[in-house]
């Protein structure tokens, strides 16, 4: 975590305040809560509780965005992930026979492999992000640097091409989902005949 250390030093030099600041402490605490909720999400044996702990983890990430003054990203995070993805998850769980209480068979032999992948992915992300942004810091006392206006300008001036490419990708996925879920005329008649 050299990135954080450098960040502290630079912030302290720039502003002459004792480091770490209050916001940084809150940021760390919320981070710990988010990490804890995420771990409970993947370890609990109660399926619906896992989905609800996921709400806590996703909400914690939204709070982290807020602390970094990225208000727009934070609310979109809540809207998309808590409001839609988790509702979809719960909808799916309700359609299954998710019992109240523990699911004894909710275990998998893949646990060690999953742990290895998760640790490797986390390490790679932390390393890349810390290395890329070790000299960058956000001035929390000045004007907010993550407002909707700023995000929009950066997105649609500097990152238009990736943005459009992503939207085409999503559109393709949407069309693909419709094609896969649609029954053809022949299948329909076969189904009717089978029912008879």
């Amino acid at each position: 975590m050299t990135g954080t250390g450098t960040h502290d030093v630079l912030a302290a030099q720039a502003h002459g305040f004792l480091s770490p600041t209050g916001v940084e402490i809150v940021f760390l605490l919320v981070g710990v809560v988010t990490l804890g909720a995420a771990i409970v999400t993947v370890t609990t044996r109660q399926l619906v509780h896992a989905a609800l702990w996921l709400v806590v983890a996703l909400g914690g990430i939204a709070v982290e965005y807020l602390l970094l003054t990225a208000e727009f990203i934070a609310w979109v995070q809540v809207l998309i992930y808590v409001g839609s993805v988790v509702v979809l998850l719960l909808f799916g769980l309700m359609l299954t026979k998710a019992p109240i209480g523990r699911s004894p068979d909710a275990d998998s032999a893949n646990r060690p492999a999953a742990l290895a992948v998760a640790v490797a992915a986390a390490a790679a992300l932390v390393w890349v992000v810390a290395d890329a942004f070790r000299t960058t810091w956000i001035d929390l006392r000045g004007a907010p640097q993550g407002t909707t206006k700023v995000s929009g300008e950066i997105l649609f001036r500097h990152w238009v091409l990736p943005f459009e490419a992503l939207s085409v990708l999503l559109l393709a996925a949407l069309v693909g989902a419709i094609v896969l879920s649609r029954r053809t005329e022949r299948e329909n008649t076969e189904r009717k005949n089978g029912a008879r």
Partner: protein
Amino acid sequence: MSDTLDVVLRLLAVFVVFLVLPLVIGQTEHKVMAHMQGRLGPMYAGGFHGWAQLVADGVKFAQKEDIVPAGADRRIFQMAPAVALLPYLLVLVAIPIGPGNAVGQFLDAGIFFVLAVMGIGVLGSLMAGWASANKFSLLGGLRTAAQLMAYELPMLLAAASVAMAAGTVSLPGIVDAFHWWWVPWQIVGALVFFTAGLAELQRPPFDMPVADSEIIFGAYTEYTGLRFALFLLSEYAGIVVLCGLTTVLFLGGWHGPFGADGLGWLWTLLKTAVLAFVVIWLRVTYPRLREDQLQKLAWTALIPLALAQIALTGVVKVVIQ
């Protein structure tokens, strides 16, 4: 110190509004429904036309035994009413009522905040539906989830249209940019937003998730006493929030034919009240939609209409620039 005092006073004002307005709407619903059905409604509690009926109801609810079914998931079951109610309190903080700084807390991305937090409220119904260990509750929860997923999108698209027209996503900014001709320009978006909002609140004619003649009371079947009252309260708070939001986004908030400077907040309240009356009126006059009709309305009518509204907004916006 005065800053802290200012914040405390604002939050206190929002809290008072949160406590009072839903009860006023509840009482209005009693009376309006009664008169539309050719009867009087509550007349005894409190003396004058039964004004204290809801207070009496509250006392009654508080006295009832708080029952948790034996098979239920205790903690989730008990947490659900709070999860259903608190988001509406949070949303009220961001709704501006008058010009200048008459808002609980100014938010840069206000529209996204209110829509995101309103979506969380539905989690309360889902938690209640699943944790009750009751088949009717589960069916209610399923219908709630399906309904939310169908109606969240048109609501968001309609709100996006206004944000495009105003060039900002902050709620006070949108009302500041409002002109009277926005009403005909955004009327389709307004209807879509209001309809989708009704569906999100599970108000008739979109009350499939609590359809009493089919699945008893949906996700709230097993609830008694104060927790049940909290769910009812969250429905009324939801009406306040939806009508307030429609006023702010589509009807110009504090703008009015006259007196917009000093009495702007009265215009906001008046428009909100008229919309709340429409909500009650719809409950009395429209039959409940069937589940498939409800989904069909969202996916084949509301979403295309909202997309058409966005296209119209974009075209007009480019032309007038």
